[in-house]
């Protein structure tokens, strides 16, 4: 039993075409006919998807089976079509050439209907498999395209590391929650509330835009993961989701770079009458990281004392101060010069904590920016 399909019969003899057509319709195929190779190629190119199999006479005037086959196999849209060569017994040498050139199989005249049917079935099965494969590849291509577009969109809304994580194979377990040591940097603007009260909304958005752009560049440069923006407040962490051996150093270097780049910005704002200062708090410690929120609105976030400490240090920092916890100071003593600001009483923590202000990179490190 052959499923319906369309066979193109190419033979210069009408008698031969009639015989083949009759045998093929007898096993459920529809027929198109061509008298020679040129006509066959015209038909195939006009209906590249309609024809399922070609029965090609080897010896024909105009364009013989060999040339026709070569043209067919050289055509991207037609080369997957199964081709059965139909030949006289004396033409077997040419048949060998045709098989080498990509013909699926051959039949000798006079055609034995049972052999015809067996070879047709095999060729059509292969064609159907090929069609399925093409269909599957097309679906795959569309899917991949969609995923790529989603990734691009995601990376606009999220930190690139988090966008990457979501699309990765280990994404699910990472999002489900894990514990890791991270360095957290909290940054915000001194005097922002007063500025926000006094300025036009457009002016305020303009200032925030400049500030966020500068911050965003520095975050990317030092490989930080941006957890969130909230007005002038920005939280960044390091060592997650991408592990970074030097996460403390990166956070401190980033904060110093931000403070340096903040100066020209604040100078231009001052000319426009706004007095804004930049403050940072940095702490290191263990946090639980993963998907935080509720169905419909999740963030990738960090929860732990380390984030609270960094946030409190940031709110205690004066204009252009980078306050770091004692542990951070100890880990970067080689990198930066710090001055102690003594013990700070931190809301929510029972004991006061020692903190230091980062004065700047030590001379040795200042000369070699990242």
């Amino acid at each position, binding site marked *: 039993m052959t499923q319906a399909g369309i066979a193109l019969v190419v*033979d*210069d*003899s*009408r*008698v*031969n075409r*009639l*015989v083949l057509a*009759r*045998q093929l319709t*007898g096993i459920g195929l529809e027929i198109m006919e061509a008298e020679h190779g040129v006509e066959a190629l015209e038909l195939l190119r006009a209906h590249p998807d309609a024809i399922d199999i070609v029965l090609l*006479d080897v*010896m*024909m*005037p*105009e364009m013989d089976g060999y040339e026709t086959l070569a043209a067919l196999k050289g055509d991207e849209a037609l080369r997957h079509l199964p081709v059965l060569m139909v030949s*006289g017994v004396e033409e077997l040498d040419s048949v060998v050439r045709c098989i080498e050139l990509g013909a699926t199989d051959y039949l000798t*005249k*006079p*055609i*034995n*209907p049972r052999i015809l049917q067996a070879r047709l079935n095999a060729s059509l099965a292969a064609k159907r498999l090929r069609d399925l494969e093409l269909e599957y590849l097309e679906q795959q291509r569309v899917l991949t395209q969609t995923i790529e577009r989603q990734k691009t969109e995601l990376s606009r809304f999220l930190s690139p590391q988090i966008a990457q994580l979501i699309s990765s194979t280990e994404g699910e377990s990472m999002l489900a929650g894990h514990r890791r040591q991270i360095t957290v940097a909290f940054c915000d603007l001194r005097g922002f509330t007063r500025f926000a009260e006094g300025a036009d909304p457009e002016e305020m958005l303009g200032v925030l835009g400049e500030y966020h752009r500068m911050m965003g560049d520095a975050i990317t440069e030092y490989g930080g993961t941006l957890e969130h923006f909230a007005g002038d407040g920005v939280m960044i962490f390091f060592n997650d989701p991408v592990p970074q051996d030097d996460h403390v150093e990166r956070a401190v270097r980033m904060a110093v770079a931000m403070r340096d780049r903040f100066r020209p910005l604040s100078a231009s704002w001052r000319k426009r009458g706004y007095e804004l200062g930049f403050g940072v708090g940095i702490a290191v410690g263990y946090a639980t990281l993963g998907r935080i929120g509720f169905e419909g609105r999740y963030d990738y976030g960090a929860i732990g004392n380390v984030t609270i400490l960094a946030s409190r240090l940031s709110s205690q920092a004066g204009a252009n101060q980078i306050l770091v916890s004692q542990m951070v100071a100890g880990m970067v003593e080689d990198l930066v010069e710090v001055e102690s600001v003594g013990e700070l009483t931190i809301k929510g923590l029972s004991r006061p904590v020692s903190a230091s202000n980062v004065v700047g990179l030590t001379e040795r490190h200042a000369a070699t920016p990242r």
Partner: protein
Amino acid sequence: MSEHDPAILDASVLDELRASVEGDRSFVVELIEAYLADGAAHVDAINAALRGDDAEALVRPAHTLKSSSATLGAMRLAGTARELEMIGRSGSLAEAGEAAGRVAEEWQATSDALRAWISSDSGA
């Protein structure tokens, strides 16, 4: 004509052909009629090519006549047409004379035999 020449009409070929289409005699009759119509044109074209000493023009009708004749069991004519095709391909009709002489006569004999098959109750 020697005893070893192929038959004008090998009726067993027609029988096989008929068997291959579930014994549909009317289909075989239709085939024969198509052959008689096209074959006459091919024979005319062959004669025209021979008269005009045009080797290239000989190839196509000779080839098609050979092929159709073999399908219907017209073996002697198929052999002659094949010879003519090869002569045509050689590019020179110098050796065509003998085969050219036979083609009209064999075509007549073949046509008669096929018509006789139709009007007989062969395989009916």
